[in-house]
């Protein structure tokens, strides 16, 4: 990099000294990893609010028995599009945004390796979600077959089907480009001395996540394309009447879908592995074990997919295999939880907002892990499957899991991005409100599921009334609390107490990003730092 740098300086123009371009052009044509990171994060926050409002439509209808607000078809559209937006539009872009901002700064690189592709992958995502949201207004209503898009039901979708499928294609292409960029950056642009096993955990988890994405997104793209040809061109890949097989779709989907859940949670593991050591003022316990555990989880994610399908009528051997392989995931996941706990052991803990969110993650993600272990047991899963128990499970790992970790990351790095400290009191209020309401929202759903309430129903028998009401109150409380988060971020971007380069007491020992000033200059590490 140094050689290139001086070469550019020797030329007539000083390309590398300029700041951001002026006006809208800065955002449309930017190739700066910080700008693109910001755009990803803002996009994800908007999608989080859009997807969240859809969840509130669902919770409002479920507030009491009987249908008061929406038609059952529209209810199904809301559950379906809520999930698609949250998975592909909120959680994934948020982690990509954090990767864009932080990976170059954590490995001492001047930018991402493929900056134009970086810009392209962001704007593809905007196109994808424009299509998906437009699909809501098509004749026949929006997609309503669940985010898993199981045939034959999904083939009953109206004109929304091709829009939703093209949206998935574009989002998938965007993810693959983003992943290639992350892998190439990590492999080629690390500062001298930063060997693989010296990389921050966030970089490690993203490297593994990027490989998962490249391996599974094409599989998903293939499956939805087959849906498209089944619907429009008379093929019968998934239609029994034509010699096809509806269960084949489920196998292919979950071969993508299970790694997909780790695509959402591994970067979260990385963020938490950055934050807990900083605020414990200790090194991460068992760094090597953390890396190997992440890699093991990634490997296992490819051989457990059919645990999402225990009730489709697999042969005994299949159920046995997927039950045992799924149970195995508990071992590396346990290692991670134990290592985070051991990092805090005999540390010197302080409880700033990033640490609070990381701690909530630690407790609540573990609860989601327990219900996951319960569902691994195939014979009992015959009862849990497709009830609110699974809804509670995956929301525990995704909301106080992935989303809390992302919020922890935002609270951790926001002063570095903006150069301002945010309002700590407000951030703590946001933390406590979110943590209390997320439990009011999702914990009762365990009870509903065990008592026999199926998921994806707009109305329910009166025995489920009490806990649904509690859950809905939690839902509105949680949703409204997020407005505080938005307000806090806007306020922090506009001004506030000046942040130091280190931001957090002792952070200098915890990563290269704390060696650059706050706010991070438009171009950082034009000369690579040397890592000892």
């Amino acid at each position, binding site marked *: 990099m140094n050689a290139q740098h001086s070469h550019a300086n020797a030329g007539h123009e000083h390309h590398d000294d300029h700041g951001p371009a002026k006006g809208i052009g800065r955002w449309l044509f930017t190739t700066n990893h910080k700008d693109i990171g910001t755009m990803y994060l803002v996009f994800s926050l908007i999608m989080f609010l859009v997807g969240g409002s859809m969840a509130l439509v669902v919770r409002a209808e479920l507030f009491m028995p009987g249908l008061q607000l929406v038609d059952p078809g529209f209810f199904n559209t809301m559950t379906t599009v809520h999930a698609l937006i949250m998975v592909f539009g909120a959680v994934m872009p948020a982690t990509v945004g954090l990767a864009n901002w932080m990976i170059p700064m954590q490995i001492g690189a001047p930018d991402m390796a493929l900056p134009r592709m970086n810009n392209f992958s962001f704007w593809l995502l905007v196109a994808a979600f424009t299509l998906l949201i437009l699909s809501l207004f098509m004749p026949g209503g929006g997609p309503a077959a669940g985010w898993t898009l199981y045939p034959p039901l999904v083939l009953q979708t109206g004109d929304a089907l091709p829009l939703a499928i093209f949206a998935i294609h574009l989002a998938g292409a965007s993810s693959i480009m983003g992943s290639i960029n992350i892998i190439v950056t990590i492999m080629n642009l690390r500062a001298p001395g930063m060997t693989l096993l010296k990389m921050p955990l966030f970089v490690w988890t993203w490297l593994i996540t990027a490989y998962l994405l490249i391996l599974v997104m094409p599989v998903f793209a293939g499956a939805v394309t087959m849906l498209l040809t089944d619907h429009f061109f008379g093929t019968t890949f998934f239609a029994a009447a034509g010699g096809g097989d509806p269960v084949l779709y489920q196998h292919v989907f979950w071969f993508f879908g299970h790694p997909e859940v780790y695509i959402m949670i591994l970067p979260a593991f990385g963020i938490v592995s950055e934050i807990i050591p900083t605020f414990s003022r200790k090194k991460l316990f068992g*760094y090597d074990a953390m890396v190997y555990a992440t890699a093991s989880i990634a490997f296992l994610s490819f051989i457990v997919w059919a645990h999402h399908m225990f009730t489709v009528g697999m042969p005994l051997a299949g159920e046995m295999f997927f039950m045992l392989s799924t149970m195995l995931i508990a071992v590396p996941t346990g290692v991670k939880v*134990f290592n985070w706990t051991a990092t805090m052991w005999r540390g010197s803990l302080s409880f700033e907002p990033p640490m609070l969110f990381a701690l909530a993650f630690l407790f609540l993600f573990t609860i989601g892990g327990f219900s996951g272990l319960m569902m691994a047991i195939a014979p009992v899963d015959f009862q849990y499957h497709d009830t609110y128990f699974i809804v509670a499970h995956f929301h525990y790992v995704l909301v106080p899991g992935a989303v809390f970790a992302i919020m922890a990351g935002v609270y951790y790095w926001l002063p570095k991005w903006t150069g301002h400290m945010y309002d700590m009191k407000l951030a703590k209020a946001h933390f406590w409100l979110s943590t209390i309401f997320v439990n009011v929202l999702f914990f009762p759903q365990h009870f509903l599921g065990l008592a026999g309430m199926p998921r994806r129903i707009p109305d329910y028998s009166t025995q489920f009334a009490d806990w649904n009401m509690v859950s809905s109150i939690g839902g509105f409380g949680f949703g409204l609390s997020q407005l505080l988060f938005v307000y806090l971020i806007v306020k922090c971007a506009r001004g506030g107490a000046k942040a130091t380069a280190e931001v957090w007491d002792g952070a200098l020992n915890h990563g290269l990003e704390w060696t650059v000033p706050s706010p991070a200059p438009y171009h950082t590490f034009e000369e690579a730092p040397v890592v000892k």
Partner: protein
Amino acid sequence: MKMVKRALAAGAALMLGTTPAMAAWSDLNLRVGVTPLSREIYGLHMMILWICVAIAVAVFGVMIYSIATFRKSKGAVPATFDHNTKAEIIWTVIPVLILVGMAIPAARTLVKIDDSRGSDLTVKVTGYQWMWQYEYVDQGVSFFSKLAQDSNDARQLDSGIDPSTVPNYLLEVDRPLVVPQGKKVRVLITAADVIHAWWVPDFGMKKDAIPGYINELWFIAEKPGVYRGQCAELCGRDHGFMPVVVEVKSQQDFDAWLASQKAAMQASKAPPAKVAQAARNTDEPMALRVATAE
């Protein structure tokens, strides 16, 4: 007299606080159910639940202790260790042992669930958008089972009917599946349009109903009664409105019911003479079977 007894029992229960407590618990936990398999599944569920609770107490205990003790505000000085091979081996090996302990009984139950041999009665279930069809294989009896009319009226958008005034709201059908008590009933499950799933929580079992596939499950319901469940796979607009209701009757009552169904089926199809014969044989299931075999 009966009324008085019941009132006394209810009063006693209230005073002891047993009834509300039990009602509350059953609202929170998995149902035990009424079949040998459902009881075994419940046992597995409770075993894993308690293992998870025990691990949670230990792990959360250490976390809470750390948070309470090692605080910077209390002047805690950070230690410098960053690994401990012995501890790491221990907390890898112990979970493996716990998992093996969980896997063995789970695998045993799984094998039992898979074994549908030696059934006494076979019923074929077909899922439709949005109702079930039940067919007593080789008996010539089949019918559709739909959401009961009063539930259907109340569930319409802004119907103005309070669901709590409808008995078994959304869990009642016009014609339930009827099966004999204490007999091994094999259920063959398929679908005609999209994927559904047939589920009765008290039988511990659900299975997807998939077009082009015939899945099976079995149960032995030990207590007579009415058992309610729902479709458990999203099947379109009215997925929430196709309940499963199974009535378990004593063998004698079941035989009588089946015979009356046959008679009714034949009355609607067969020439008059055969109807008369079927009607005569209502009380004699053996004779009836011969008669239908003709």
